[in-house]
């Protein structure tokens, strides 16, 4: 919000304009979903969580969504920072902020790798959280109490 204006101007002059027009735009809008889910979490957790199985499930699912959204935002952040770096590199080595698709291939591969690993991590965490939901009632209760 405060420092992005400069980066935005650099990204828009560079070859990766989608770093702003897609990744940053979706990131800031999805952040608001994260805020609403994070606000809902303590409201859902109010009361006797240990005895209410349905409440526990709601809390776990909401937590899983918060984790997934946060990791997705991290992945988008990778693209945004790469958008700035590529624009600066283009200016430094080509004298212009524009660079051909072929010249950006190496950076694209690295960035995509980071994005995929981010999603893989988020998928793993959400799988663990989902697995907790199918635990027998007694086991879930013990898990919460411990």
């Amino acid at each position: 919000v405060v420092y992005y204006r400069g980066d935005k101007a650099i990204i828009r002059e560079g070859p990766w304009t989608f770093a702003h027009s897609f990744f940053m735009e979706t990131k800031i809008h999805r952040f608001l979903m994260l805020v609403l889910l994070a606000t809902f979490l303590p409201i859902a957790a109010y009361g006797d969580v240990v005895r209410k199985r349905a409440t526990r499930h709601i809390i776990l699912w909401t937590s899983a969504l918060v984790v997934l959204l946060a990791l997705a935002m991290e992945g988008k952040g990778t693209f945004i920072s790469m958008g700035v770096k590529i624009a600066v590199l283009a200016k430094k080595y080509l004298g212009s902020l524009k660079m051909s698709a072929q010249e950006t291939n190496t950076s694209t591969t690295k960035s995509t790798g980071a994005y995929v690993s981010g999603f893989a991590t988020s998928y793993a965490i959400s799988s663990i959280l989902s697995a907790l939901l199918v635990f027998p009632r007694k086991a879930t209760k013990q898990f919460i109490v411990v």
Partner: protein
Amino acid sequence: VAFTGHHWVSYGLLKMIVFLALGFVLSRRGINMTGNALITTIVGATVLSGLIIAGYFIRGAV
């Protein structure tokens, strides 16, 4: 719009107020909903809104 110093902060604040106000009003209407129905609603709404946001900005980026 930027009464907080930045329009995005104002937007976030406005969303929070609407969320809390709607939550307050709806919680007093005594709506019966099972845990699974609420989970489906929350997850469905999050996924669907995420897809709508992505779709809208893909159109803008292309």
